């Protein structure tokens, strides 16, 4: 038990994590490519045509995993933020920072594909549906985090300030979500429902899960690549980075 703890803290140092991040990035890139390829093949050719929505529904194989990822990544970032604040580890904040663009990208992707889906289904690009509105607010939260992060020059202050913002955000997300839900039901009644789980057959569910795991692997891969860049930038004055750069060029 004790040796495991020591190990974890060993990897919380950027210098030891840097080479590890490369390995994780390579492995998860391969997983991501394979899973997303399978997932896309299945969503186009294997999954049956929906009897109500026709072929257009197939975009949900991107849309739903993207929405899940966008929410999940924010929670993971908040988790890193909490770790960083409690243990004062630099790497945690770097991880949160590296995940943010991916999370924002998924939130945007979810809105974009949602509106592609909405046009043929509802006849309009945008509907003030509770889920879409919440997703939009989530995108705002991501943008706020990234804006605050980049507005603060001192990296340490930036780490801690944005960590506080993430924690405030994660406490607020359920409140925002339920208030938007309430607002929505009061104003138009819940006549429109996204993917009703009941009507989904097994192939669809499996496809969606494969895509989700593919997106997971993708998120890990890009965040590892990004965290390596962040580590290099932040630790550029330390001796191990100089050696590393000297060795690579």
């Amino acid at each position, binding site marked *: 038990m004790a040796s495991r703890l020591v190990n974890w803290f060993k990897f919380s140092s950027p210098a030891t994590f840097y080479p590890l991040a490369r390995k994780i990035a390579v492995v998860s890139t391969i997983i991501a490519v394979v899973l997303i390829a399978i997932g896309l093949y299945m969503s186009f050719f294997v999954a049956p045509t929906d009897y109500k929505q026709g072929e257009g529904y197939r975009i949900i194989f991107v849309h739903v995993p993207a929405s899940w990822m966008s929410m999940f990544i924010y929670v993971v970032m908040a988790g890193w933020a909490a770790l960083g604040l409690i243990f004062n580890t630099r790497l945690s904040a770097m991880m949160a920072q590296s995940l943010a663009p991916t999370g924002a990208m998924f939130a945007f992707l979810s809105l974009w594909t949602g509106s592609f889906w909405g046009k043929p289904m509802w006849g309009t690009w945008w509907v003030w549906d509770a889920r879409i509105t919440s997703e939009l607010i989530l995108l705002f939260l991501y943008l706020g985090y990234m*804006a*605050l992060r980049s*507005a603060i020059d001192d990296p340490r202050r930036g780490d801690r*300030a944005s960590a*506080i*913002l993430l924690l*405030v955000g994660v406490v607020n997300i359920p409140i925002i979500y339920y208030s938007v839900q*309430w607002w929505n039901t009061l104003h138009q009644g819940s006549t429109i429902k996204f993917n009703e789980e009941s009507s989904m057959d097994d192939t669809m569910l499996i496809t969606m899960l494969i895509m989700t795991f593919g997106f997971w692997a993708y998120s890990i891969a890009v965040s590892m690549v990004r965290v390596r860049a962040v580590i290099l930038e932040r630790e550029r004055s330390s001796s191990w980075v100089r050696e590393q750069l000297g060795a690579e060029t």
Partner: protein
Amino acid sequence: MFEPLLWIIRRDLTIAMRRRSDIFTTLIFFVIVVSLFPLGIGPELETLRLIAPGIVWVGALLASMLALEQIFSADHRDGTLEQMLLTPQPVSILVIGKVLAHWLVTGLPLVVMAPLLGLQYDLSAAGLGALMVSLLLGTPALSLIGAIGAALTLGLRSGGVLLALLVLPLYIPVLIFGAGAVEATVSGLGGASHLSMLAAILVASLVLAPLATSAALRVAED
């Protein structure tokens, strides 16, 4: 514990009274923003009555957000903020005092002014009452939540715009229940449930927001 709280409130109110013009800026901003909407939408009272709760609420929200930029900045510049962080008092208590004083100076005038603006939109008497009560419960919550953003952006170059970006998404629940209360009252459904949700948000932010704000202030003074 309460003596320092009262002193902070008294201190900030005294300072505010000695530079009175700052108080009116927020209020005038509120009045102007709310008065702009009919010019953009058209003078039909039917439409205006429909959108009044939302507009007055959005106006109050923007006004209180703009005012918040100032809440810690003067103390940050003259060093009284760092002294506050070094007192034996819990920082969250001092934050509550500062927010409360700030609300009395910038938020309360909005609450008092709102019914007059509601008249511009031909709101019913019940609607005006609901507007006032909802603002009375909602604007302190806005100040408490916004103080987190103000503390996070303290001393940053693009402070004002950044503050808006951070804080406005967090204001959404207050907006929904605040405007919802007025709307529900006007349409005869009764706004009690909305108002109790607002009160719940106020209590929750009174407990949680000062903790986040004081953590953010410590980071800003680092």
